């Protein structure tokens, strides 16, 4: 009851007290002289502490400094920018269409917002708790508007690299279907496209717990440390644990792609997400070829040229559609 009295006095001071609260407070004050003292002491303390902010600030001076910096930076920007404007405007529209943020309420408590990238787009976001997330192509992330719940829970379909701010009381969890990755403060990559049957979690720094929903509740499958990777087959529930170079796995955030002994099938799926194209094989057997390759922030056509040289295959392109075929055949879509 004593603690409640303080709550009421604070609410009164901050003018957020309800009518009911006000009545309660009056009754409580009148109940005894000690209460009266507690009330006046508390108000006195609150008024005094408010004076901490009595000194004036000087926004004009500060803004002058900032404005000077902006002007200096503007004068250094390339003059070409005028011609870029329609291009930038078009990109902005594409970006807005490609990265949609919209809200919806899940009933009582949390209001969630969505981030979504189409294939071919990737973006870096700073979440409300200041954690950083790089969201890959063809990926969606659902996050609570205010990270003020008991846990910081997000939902992912696609690929993302997270760099999470440590908050002792609030573990950060990423839900990807039945698999949940739990972290305190760390950086890690999750690849979990809903339409692919695999989920891969790779840790860059710190430690995570990967949990699976078995028999109705979440159980820890494995704890991962830096450079550990777990790969889960969502069809049959089997998983493999391996050690890898986390830097290679997260290289996509800088638009570098590194593949070690990866099947062409997997490489192609990765390219589809990153470039926003559709790639087909004229002969499914061709997709089983395994390659090791590194591509540093290059265009799709350069990537395809490299791939076909490495694999001894060929490709043809028709707008956003690519067809990989044997060298002595050229692929294409059969007219229906």
């Amino acid at each position: 009851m004593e603690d409640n009295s303080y709550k009421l006095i604070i609410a009164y001071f901050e003018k957020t007290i309800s009518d009911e609260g006000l009545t309660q407070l009056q009754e409580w004050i009148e109940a005894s002289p000690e209460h009266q003292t507690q009330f006046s002491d508390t108000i006195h303390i609150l008024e005094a502490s408010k004076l901490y902010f009595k000194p004036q600030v000087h926004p004009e001076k500060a803004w002058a400094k900032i404005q000077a910096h902006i002007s200096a930076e503007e004068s250094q920007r390339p003059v070409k920018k005028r011609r870029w404007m329609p291009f930038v405007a078009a990109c902005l529209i594409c970006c807005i269409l490609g990265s949609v943020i919209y809200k919806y309420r899940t009933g009582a408590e949390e209001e969630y917002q969505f981030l979504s990238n189409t294939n071919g787009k990737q973006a870096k976001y700073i979440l409300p708790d200041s954690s950083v997330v790089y969201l890959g192509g063809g990926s969606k992330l659902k996050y609570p508007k205010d990270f003020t719940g008991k846990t910081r829970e997000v939902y992912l379909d696609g690929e993302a690299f997270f760099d999470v701010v440590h908050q002792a009381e609030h573990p950060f969890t990423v839900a990807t279907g039945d698999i949940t990755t739990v972290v305190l403060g760390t950086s890690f990559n999750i690849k979990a496209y809903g339409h692919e049957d695999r989920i891969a979690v790779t840790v860059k720094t710190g430690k995570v717990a990967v949990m699976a929903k078995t028999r109705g509740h979440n159980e820890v499958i494995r704890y991962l440390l830096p450079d550990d990777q777990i790969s889960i087959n969502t069809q049959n529930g089997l998983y493999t644990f391996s050690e890898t170079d986390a830097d290679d796995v997260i290289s996509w955030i800088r638009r570098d792609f590194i593949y070690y002994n990866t099947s062409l099938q997997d490489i192609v799926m990765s390219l589809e997400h990153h470039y926003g194209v559709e790639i087909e094989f004229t002969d499914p057997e061709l997709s089983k070829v395994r390659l090791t390759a590194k591509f540093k922030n290059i265009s799709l056509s350069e990537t395809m040229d490299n791939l076909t040289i490495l694999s001894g295959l060929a490709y043809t392109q028709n707008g956003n559609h690519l067809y990989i075929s044997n060298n002595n055949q050229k692929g294409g879509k059969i007219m229906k």
Partner: protein
Amino acid sequence: MYPELSDEALTDLLQNNDHLALETLFNRYYKPLCQFSAVYTREYVIAEEIIANLFIKVWDNRHDAVVLNIKSYLFVAAKNLALNYLEKKKEPVDSIEEINTDHFTFQDGKNPFEILSSRESYDGILNVIDTLPPGQRQILLMSHIDSLDNRQISGILGISVRTVDTTLYKSIKKLRLLLKDFRRSAQGN
């Protein structure tokens, strides 16, 4: 400027190199950010410098990432920058927990007990506030910042709303105790 636009709209405009958007955000949050920062730095000159630099940084990094909640981002960044400053200055980041009269500074050179034995002056109380356990002191002061409610404070500090609420009244309880002690010892002299 765009005073009627939401934080999200302004953040979008920032991506488009619109410095009026930055100015709107500046006018909206500069004062509370300085107050918030001053809770850590304990003086305003440094706090203002930190916040001016923060807005410059926000401008410079506007294309680096999409900030989903710029208000939260600004306050968390302000806290981190203030703490970094204190770390570099090699001052103890948080004050000691026991009461130490050497911490009191009075312009009129009066003995703290003398001042407190009369109806406590506001200055006296402010000095006693500085001796509170750091978490209590911070939350008591932050509760007076206009743009921040307890929910937002909890988000910025990474603690639960419940913790903010209880810490707030704990700080008042503790202050009352401390002030009672001073009254008693002042009368004893």
